């Protein structure tokens, strides 16, 4: 399931719901991205999405991950709008029979979300606002998954 939300969400609630009533899963990996205060350099983060398009693009990658890693289930929750330091920005959970697939799929989806998913991220701090774009590190991380 893919969910965009303007309101804060609780990653613990999300993981609890995701793990419930699984008797054949074995492994659930999760990732929670949290807005950092950067020692006062960031007051607020603002995430813009393209409603409809964004969900569909993420769903396409979640389906690719499901096939590639033989997942049983996948959940992506992503905040949009203004986000305060300490609030969760993104939550990804993957369910598989064994741990390697669950870990790799979660890692793969996060690399995609960081550098290719249709979100635009603006940081506002005492020095003003700036748009954040993928770093070289993000691009290198993503390149790990390219199949030749």
């Amino acid at each position, binding site marked *: 399931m893919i969910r965009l939300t303007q309101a804060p969400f609780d990653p613990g609630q999300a993981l609890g719901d995701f793990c419930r009533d699984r008797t054949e899963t074995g492994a659930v990996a999760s990732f929670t*991205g949290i807005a950092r205060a950067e020692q006062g350099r960031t007051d607020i983060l603002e*995430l*813009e999405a*393209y409603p*409809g*398009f964004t969900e*569909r693009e993420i769903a396409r990658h979640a389906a690719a991950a499901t096939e590639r890693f033989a997942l049983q289930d996948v959940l992506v929750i*992503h905040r949009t709008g203004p986000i305060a330091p300490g609030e969760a*920005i*993104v939550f990804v959970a993957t369910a598989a029979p064994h741990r390697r697939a669950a870990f790799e799929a979660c890692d793969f989806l*996060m690399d995609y*979300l*960081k*550098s*290719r*998913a*249709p*979100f*635009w*991220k*603006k940081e506002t701090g005492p020095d003003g606002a700036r*748009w*954040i*774009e*993928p770093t070289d590190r*993000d691009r290198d991380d993503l390149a790990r998954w390219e199949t030749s």
Partner: protein
Amino acid sequence: MARVLLFGRLSDLAGWRERDIPAASLAELRGRIATEDPALFEALQAPAVRTAVDQELVSLDVALRPDSEVAFLPPMSGG
């Protein structure tokens, strides 16, 4: 006519986020933007900026219907 959407730094640059611009193709739309706002046109030409028509990514010129939605997408970064 097309509904044009700008995201991220593009809307900061243009000073708007959503506008109707009359155009029968993507090429014509870009031409109109070039006339009205050369700085925005320049920004849209960057290879990292992607274009979606009716929520599908396109890389070549396409015809626009009267109710088409054209979105210009600067480099993306979620999470």
